């Protein structure tokens, strides 16, 4: 698992930049002078002298020579940083966070930790704090991101709690990264307000999708999973409003012990009532955050819900809906489901375990969340294809 943040940043120079700065990093010592003034140079090797003119310098080893005024020593775990990545540095706190990795297919940006649901399996337990600065930082980072970025995920917390600031963010993505797909993970509840859904539509982002979880066809069961009374109605209204406003919607179902039993019924409900949605993602459980405290309530070996999963996929696929399975290891998936499996776990948290040694199909495999060590299927078996 990649470490995206570090609190052991050591200032080497005589100056630190004030407050929080968002900078792009460069590895090009010959970078044009006019460009380098805004960037931090990544010092990989023992250079007798570092190229002049960068806004700051990031070292992985303590240099023997004198260093420019703005210089920091990084933990070795950050050595994945490379040209074009964007970091946020708070020198006074000695912290660094990687906001964006140019070579990753899985850039996700956390825009708030606040939430109006309290899901039993939340991987990012909400905190009721004022974290407006996250948007400010992101608005600085967006213009620095590569135009070639394939996709960005906006996550929380609940991004719609940002209100108009979410519109501001989406607009920034539309202006600076018009070719980048933007996926917002939301519980959809605030879109029960049609004006808000319509405002999202009016941003006219060319490639925007809102991913919204739906856990049951029965209101009380959905509300139980998300621990919020009335959430089901809000979420359904939100989905309808977004689609009415011309915004693409993905329905996301996390599969666990409280959702698998009525999965076929949920699939039938979706195809009868929400056929107009653009994608359905059926996802494995990530064992982190609240899931750990509720593990006994939530855990079911994925092998044991294959009949329900197979049925649900057949129902949705039969209705020509676009359906994908995320976060599942190929070896526990029913063979007929392999073609729906996507390798989607963010690269920084995807790992394999000892049982996978020698498996010939890791490349196609959904893999494991790094958190899966806590509990995983008893049926992991390597493939030995020719």
């Amino acid at each position, binding site marked *: 698992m990649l470490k995206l943040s570090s609190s052991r940043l050591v200032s080497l120079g005589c100056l630190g930049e004030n407050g929080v700065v968002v900078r792009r990093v460069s590895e090009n010592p010959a970078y044009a002078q006019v460009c380098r003034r805004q960037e931090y140079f990544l010092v990989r090797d023992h250079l007798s002298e570092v190229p002049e003119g960068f806004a700051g310098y990031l070292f992985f080893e303590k240099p023997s020579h004198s260093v420019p005024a703005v210089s920091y020593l990084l933990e070795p775990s950050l050595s994945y940083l490379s040209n074009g990545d964007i970091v946020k540095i708070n020198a006074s706190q000695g912290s660094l966070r990687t906001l964006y990795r140019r070579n990753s297919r899985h850039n996700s940006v956390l825009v708030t930790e606040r939430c109006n649901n309290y899901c039993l399996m939340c991987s990012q337990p909400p905190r009721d704090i004022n974290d407006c600065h996250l948007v400010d930082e992101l608005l600085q980072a967006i213009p620095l991101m590569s135009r070639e970025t394939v996709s960005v995920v906006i996550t929380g917390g609940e991004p719609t709690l940002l209100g108009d600031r979410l519109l501001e963010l989406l607009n920034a993505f539309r202006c600076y990264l018009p070719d980048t797909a933007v996926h917002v993970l939301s519980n959809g509840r605030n879109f029960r307000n049609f004006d808000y859904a319509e405002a999202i539509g009016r941003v006219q982002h060319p490639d925007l999708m809102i991913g919204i979880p739906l856990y049951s066809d029965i209101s009380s069961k959905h509300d139980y999973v998300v*621990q919020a009374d009335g959430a*089901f109605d809000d979420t*359904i*209204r939100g989905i309808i409003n977004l689609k009415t406003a011309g915004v693409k919607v993905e329905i996301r179902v996390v599969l666990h012990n409280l959702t698998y039993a009525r999965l076929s019924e949920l699939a039938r409900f979706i195809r009868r*009532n929400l056929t107009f949605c653009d994608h359905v993602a059926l996802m494995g459980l990530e064992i982190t955050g609240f899931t750990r405290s509720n593990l006994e309530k939530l855990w079911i070996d994925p092998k044991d819900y294959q009949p329900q999963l197979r049925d649900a996929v057949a129902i949705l696929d*039969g209705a020509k809906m676009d359906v994908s399975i995320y976060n599942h290891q190929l070896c526990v998936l029913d063979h007929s489901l392999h073609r729906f499996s996507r390798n989607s776990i963010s690269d920084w948290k995807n790992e394999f375990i000892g049982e996978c040694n020698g498996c010939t199909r890791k490349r196609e495999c959904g893999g494991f969340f790094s958190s899966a060590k806590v509990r995983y299927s008893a049926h992991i078996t390597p493939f030995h294809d020719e």
Partner: protein
Amino acid sequence: MASVFKDEAFFLPAEHTYSLLPFRFIRLDSDRYVAVNEVGESRVLLRHELELFVKKRLPQTSSLYFALKASHFVEDNDSDIAPDLLTLKVRSKRARIARFTSLHMFVVTLRCNHSCRYCQVSRQSEDRSAYDMTEATADKALDFTFRSPAPAIKIEFQGGEPLLNFDLIKYIVLAAEGRNTVEKRDLVFVIATNLSFLTDEILNFCRDHAILISTSLDGPEDLHNANRPKPGNDSYQVTIDGIRRAREALGVDQVSALMTTTKASLLRVTEIVDEYVKQGFKGIFLRNLSPYGFAIKTRYFNAYDSDNWLNFYRRGLDYILELNQQGCAFTEFYTATILQKMLTPYETGFVNLRSPAGIGIAGIIFNYNGEVYPSDEARMKAEMGDKIFCMGNLTTESYEQMMLSSALLTPLEDSVAESVPMCEECAFLPYCGSDPDYHYATQQDFVGHKALSGFCKKKMGIFRYIIHKLEDNPEARQILESWVNW
């Protein structure tokens, strides 16, 4: 420490607080009922379940309650989303009405080389001037066609045998394509032909203009030739050769066939299905004989009643399901259409499986002489001498005059099944439709008494049979679901 999480019971609705949403029910068999809501979602219930349900004594954590709640038969104080979703589903089901007339049939000639017993309209004549449509009439028909707001327009060439007036087909196709460079509709052409006059020139033209071919195939050779006499008595061979040539020129999906059921067909449904399988078709439409024109005159229609036809249909469907179970994927298209109404949020384009009926507003027909009729059956009736459905003539009446004529509006208003006696309370209403042509032909009334209606009897029989299959036979259910066009 108490958990910060609430348990499931906290989120349940208060017991016995549910209310019923609109639905209808009907007895299915000795101890079961089927309940159907306004948008066609259904549930089969035992009698005592139905009683508990309507008396609001169903436990609200039972799987039956969940099923009824998820398909919007009930609403409780935990959720008030049902009316929103029902509204949406009603709107989806009705969306086709607003799309308006899509199918435009052009009778380019009444002349034909066949003298089919069930045909209502064809003429054995060499007189082109008497029975062919003129270019001037075709132009006016195209004006009419493009007045329809429909985004998708299908132009179907009918007869008689339309290939006897192929020059006019060419003229219409080129003119329609010309207009469509500006109109930008999703434009499709079909020729309904017996294939006798197929030439390479015709096939090349069809290929160049993506024209579909629809032909008639009534079953095995002896049955087909008996139903469809022509000089030489070789209709079957001509048809089979024509299908092969058309497929080779245009592609297999571009050629379809329709069968007509006659008294002689009734005991031969498996042979008829086999013929379609043998000829490489992916399905069949088990049609019933329409009670119009020559068919009534020749007493053919009365030669078999609804029960006989239903037996034919049931045996046909059983046999087709059997074929599917044996690995031969094959569809009964009428069943597939009804399944679409039962299992999807969408409505079918089928003219008499809609309420209001699709007459004039889904399909319309331009007769060779410029007369406009709301359905093929209506112009057949006219050829028999009763022009009650005639909306006017292209040469004398405007689009507005014809579309607002009482010849169209009266039967159309009478076809709103929701306001028709016996239909309005029928559980199968969301699956059914209206057929003013049929009821006029059989009862001299656009509505008709449904207790005496063969249309009603056949439809009810089909719905019950399909629901039995879906409910009692998981293997059949799987096959039937695979037929649904989503």
